[in-house]
Each structure stands twice: as structure tokens, then as C-alpha cells.
């Protein structure tokens, strides 16, 4: 009996991510959810710019590559033109919380019926470890070698907390993938976000606290511990908004 195998929606190719990068785990969770809901044939994914720019090679569903930060705008167009399709975006923190902030907030405000998977690893990974909008106060990066100084660089953006104030957003949850329990919770959250879209319940965003061992300068194991010690205290896990139960009652 097979206990665990690669989901069908995940392409059988080597991922280009660094050793120990949890992007691969989140890719797999998304693919597992697509398999379980049986929506591979009608799912369209929108790939971002960033480390996950080549996500279009890794899923067996149709994929579109968006301009930097514009994945929610592209998803809006795809979903409005083809409402029967399931549309998700897969974005990092540089893409979603920096250059694509306007698209993110406005797609939430319009309550587009799309699913956003947001990877928050507190750093710009692809370009070599510069400070991101989500970098923690005091965090050492290439462009903050003495630690992020909040007097000079401001404070990190907490996307789930911010979007919970936007009336259009329907489901917001922050999860992590640094241990087995959190991975299982992350899968539940991602499944709910896709299920919401299937049922027409509106805008869902799942923020996944991820790791960047290479640019954090840590081993993969230490990076998972760093998530527990530094990331989760600043970015508490949990459901930030859930209007979907209320919609059912109506």
C-alpha cells in the first residue's frame, strides 16, 4: 500500500531551488490539493517573478507567467474571462508585498474569486538576499548589513493583518512549513482556499512562512528553527479572516 507518493499535478522534473528551500514543500501541497479536488484539467496557475519564477515548469496544469507583481491582475483577467476555471497565483514576498502591493490590495478589495499562495521568507531570494518589505527588524541582509534599522527602513508589512481590514477579502490564513504538524496545517489551509474558489466564496489568500537557508546564511535545519524562533513570533500563525462560514449561513 502506498502511503506517500508524488502528486500527479506536480511535474516529475528536478526543482531548481536551493537545497532545503521550502518552496518545494509548498509546490507539493498545492499539487496535492489540485489532485484531491480533481481540478487539474481546469486549473490555471499564475507564476510570479522571484525564486518561483519557473513554477510554470513544475505544475502539470496550465500556467501563465505574469509581469513582476502583476499575478493577481492576470488572475483577475483569466478568472473573469473563464469563470469556470480555477485560478491561483503563487507569489513571493518581493512580488506580492513590494512591487505587486497595489494589485494584491485591489484584487482583495474587488473580492476576485481567486486563490493566492503567498510565500513569505523575509528576504529577496532570487536577486541574492536583499532586504524585503517583510524582513524582520534587525535582520541582516545584503542591503542591511548592520541589521534592518526601523528608523531608516521602516517596519515589515504584515500582509494578512493588513488585508483583514479590506472588506472584499474573504479568507486569510497564515501558516508555516517548518515541521510536520505545520505542513499538515498548511495543506488544510491551502485546500480550504481552493475549495472556497470552487464554491464561489471569493478572495482567499494563504501566507506561508517559508525559509531561505542560502540567503539567511543558515543550514536547512537551522533555517527551520529560525522560523520558530524569529519569524513566527513576529508573524503569528492563524486565521485572520474567515467570511466563508458567514456566507454559507446567508
Amino acid at each position, binding site marked *: 500500500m502506498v502511503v*506517500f507518493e508524488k502528486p500527479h499535478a506536480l511535474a516529475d522534473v528536478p526543482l531548481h531551488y536551493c537545497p532545503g528551500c521550502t518552496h518545494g514543500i509548498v509546490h507539493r501541497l498545492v499539487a496535492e490539493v489540485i489532485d484531491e479536488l480533481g481540478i487539474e484539467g481546469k486549473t490555471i496557475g499564475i507564476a510570479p517573478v522571484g525564486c518561483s519564477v519557473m513554477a510554470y515548469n513544475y505544475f502539470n496544469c496550465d500556467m501563465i507567467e505574469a509581469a513582476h507583481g502583476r499575478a493577481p491582475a492576470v488572475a483577475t483577467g483569466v478568472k473573469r474571462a473563464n469563470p469556470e476555471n480555477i485560478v491561483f497565483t503563487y507569489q513571493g514576498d518581493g512580488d506580492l508585498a513590494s512591487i505587486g502591493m497595489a494589485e494584491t490590495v485591489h484584487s482583495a478589495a474587488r473580492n476576485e474569486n481567486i486563490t493566492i499562495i503567498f510565500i513569505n521568507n523575509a528576504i529577496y531570494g532570487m536577486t541574492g538576499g536583499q532586504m524585503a518589505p517583510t524582513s524582520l527588524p534587525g535582520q541582516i541582509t545584503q542591503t542591511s548589513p548592520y541589521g534592518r534599522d526601523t528608523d531608516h527602513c521602516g517596519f515589515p508589512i504584515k500582509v494578512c493583518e493588513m488585508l483583514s481590514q479590506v472588506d472584499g477579502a474573504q479568507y486569510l490564513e497564515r501558516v508555516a512549513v517548518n515541521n510536520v504538524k505545520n505542513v499538515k496545517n498548511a495543506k488544510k489551509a491551502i485546500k480550504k482556499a481552493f475549495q472556497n474558489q470552487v464554491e464561489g466564496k471569493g478572495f482567499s489568500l494563504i501566507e506561508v512562512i517559508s525559509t531561505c537557508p542560502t540567503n539567511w546564511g543558515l543550514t536547512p535545519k537551522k533555517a527551520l528553527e529560525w522560523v520558530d524562533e524569529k519569524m513566527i513570533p513576529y508573524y503569528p500563525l492563524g486565521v485572520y479572516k474567515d467570511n466563508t462560514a458567514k456566507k454559507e449561513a446567508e
Partner: protein
Amino acid sequence: MAKLTFKTDKCKGCGLCVDVCPKKVLTLAADKINAKGHHPVEAVNMDDCIACAFCATMCPDCIITVER
């Protein structure tokens, strides 16, 4: 009887599976190098494996198949 299958050529030797295994079944093969130049994972005492699939759950590259 549990069975683990590894796609060894895709392994990047990050060791997350080794750390998460509750029965210490896995190790990184110090005497082997795969096509990518990493020391790949291997099972050293399969008799202890309980097929919990924790290793596969944490593997970022999805190289592990778990059977029981």
C-alpha cells in the same frame, strides 16, 4: 514491511528528512555522490522504519515514495 524508494538523482542532500525521522532510519551517504554533486539520502536501518512518511512530508524535492 515498510518500503522507501528514493529518486536519488533529484536529492539535494539538505538533510531535512534525516532530521525529522523519529526512528533515525535515514542518513546522507558520505561515500556516494549523485549526478548533481550532492551526498544523497539513503536508508541505513530499514527494519526500524514505521512508514510514518514524515521524511516524505518534509522533503522539498518530493523524491521519497513510502509504501507499507
